[in-house]
């Protein structure tokens, strides 16, 4: 691949050369693999699959830890590569880790709403795991939108969850710095639902539009001009693969999520109901660890931090981490800090 432009000035010539080399490395890294830990499908419901990760060491805790990721992205970002894998760190600590993959909804799933996702899919996973263990409660780790679903489930079924962890999870959707909430507040969600499933690319476009120059230009320029080695380039490409590998969103669930949370802020206002049952954060009595990113442009820290004001649990720990939304899952600093917070916190709780 050839870098565009011609080299006249010395600085320009040097930059042209650097960019050409980096582009060649990027081309060579195209087929890089993502996801690293072995896992086995143990249960499924529709397009949703529950996976259990193979242990890396002897299990130190018998209670399973179920990870509930967002519907809008793929969960393998939590297990991107051996050095950048929250899942692997948890496995190395002897935890019995399970993960929900929501799969790719197609047109037949367009009417699946949040109630079905929460009660039948997430709930189905939890019931399956509990049935395997004589009804024992489990630990639940909700990530981003998956954190919202986890909070709803824990509020509806407080007896099912022993310990709850939320990662970059929005709770108050109407804080002043929430740009996404401002943009979608005027959407006609009934019309949106009628239009059918939304391609993942559209949502990606929306997220990129929050900071377009940084996310679609500067990020690449920084890499291209930094004389990256092949390994750095491969790490970068893995992230890019994940960012642009978004599943389609089924119409009903997306419309409900936008209306109930982004537009009407029902969770914070304590007006949410799922399947005619009130969902109140006050009902969550389980110990709760809330990890949020200080530089999060998708879920502002203020939106996550608010959880502490609404939760019913007396054992609440809020923890701010100096990184961005995606950095929370893959950055080197958060890669150590996030499991470093979760593992001892769980160990201190039965």
């Amino acid at each position, binding site marked *: 691949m050839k870098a565009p432009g011609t080299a006249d*000035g010395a600085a320009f010539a040097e930059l042209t050369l650097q960019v050409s080399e980096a582009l060649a490395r990027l081309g060579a890294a195209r087929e890089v693999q993502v996801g690293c830990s072995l896992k086995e499908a143990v249960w499924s419901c529709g397009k949703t699959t529950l996976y259990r990760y193979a242990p890396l060491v002897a299990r130190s805790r018998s209670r399973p830890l179920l990870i509930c990721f967002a519907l809008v992205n793929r969960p393998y970002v939590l297990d991107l590569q051996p050095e950048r894998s929250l899942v692997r760190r948890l496995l190395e600590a002897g935890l019995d880790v399970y993960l929900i993959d929501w799969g790719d909804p197609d047109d037949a799933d367009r009417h699946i709403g949040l109630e079905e996702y929460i009660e039948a899919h997430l709930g189905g996973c939890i019931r399956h795991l509990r049935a395997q263990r004589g009804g024992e409660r489990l630990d639940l780790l909700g990530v981003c939108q998956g954190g919202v679903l986890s909070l709803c489930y824990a509020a509806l079924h407080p007896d099912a969850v022993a310990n709850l962890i939320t990662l970059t999870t929005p709770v108050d959707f109407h804080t002043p710095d929430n*740009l996404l909430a401002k943009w979608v507040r005027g959407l006609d969600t009934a019309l949106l639902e009628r239009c059918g499933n939304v391609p993942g690319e559209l949502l990606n476009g929306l997220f990129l539009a929050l900071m377009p120059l940084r996310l679609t230009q500067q990020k690449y*320029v920084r890499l291209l001009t930094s004389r990256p080695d092949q390994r750095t380039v491969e790490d970068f490409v893995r992230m*890019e693969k994940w960012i642009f590998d978004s599943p389609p969103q089924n119409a009903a669930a997306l419309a409900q999520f936008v209306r109930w949370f982004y537009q009407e802020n029902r969770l914070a206002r304590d007006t949410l109901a799922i399947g005619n049952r009130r969902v109140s954060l006050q009902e969550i009595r389980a110990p709760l660890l809330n990890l949020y990113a200080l530089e999060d442009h998708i879920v502002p820290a203020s939106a996550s931090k608010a959880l502490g004001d609404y939760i019913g649990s007396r054992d609440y720990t809020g923890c701010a981490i100096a990184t961005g939304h995606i950095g929370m899952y893959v950055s080197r600093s958060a890669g150590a800090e996030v499991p470093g917070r979760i593992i001892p916190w769980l160990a201190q709780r039965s």
Partner: protein
Amino acid sequence: MQTTGTGTSFRPEEAYAAAAERFFDLMKTFGVSAGTTPDWKALTAPLAAQFERWLQMSQSAAPWFHPAAQGAPGGFGLGAAPAAAFGPLPLGPAALQGGQVPRTFELLGRLAQLQAQLAKHWSEIAGTAAQRFIGRLGTAAAVPTTPQQALKLYELWVKCAEEAYAATVHREDFSRLQAELTNTSAALLDEQRQQAETLVRGFGLPTRSEVDALHRQVKELRQQLAELQAPRAARADTTEASTQAERNTPRKPPRAARKRPAAKRTRAPRPRR
């Protein structure tokens, strides 16, 4: 056991090359390639024009309504589909009902109006960004002679541009416009779907509305079935849970196998009355 697969819409080289191309264009605008110090103040207008073009181009990709554009790099934005994407259906206007066509054109007109309003915002953002950048740079700034200096200049430009962008896109009027663009685009899609339904009905093919109605019926039936099965499932769960619990509980060895050294057995003293 499985390991994770990868998505199919990832086309990174185009995005990287496009970013590199824009970077070099910017460097040329800054005079890096010529090696001569530009008249920075005079750069405000071309810099703004360049940024405005980029904003407009980036917003033109709308994969929701434009399947051919799916995965296209550089595109972002909500509901900013080009009006051309909503041309008449390929099967011919004769098949459409009279009332549907004016509504489609009305929506197309509205979409064009909204896109014109959006273009004004891009223009404002681009102008503010360029002014902010030149203002911070100062007129005496020298042309970069090393890659590090050039990159520093680029970083300053991105910072100024993002600040200008954020100042506009957080505003109430911009947010309303974004929502209205999406709603109008969705209304157009809905309108086209209704037109398509009129056509397929003529051929005796099932329509979306009919499939949806069937889906609702199946869902209701499933729900009724689940309700009928619920008491039986609950009983089975309880039995399974207790059996499982029983399995997990360490059992005492069978009576016959237990060692009972009778001679060493001690009894707790009985309480005195």
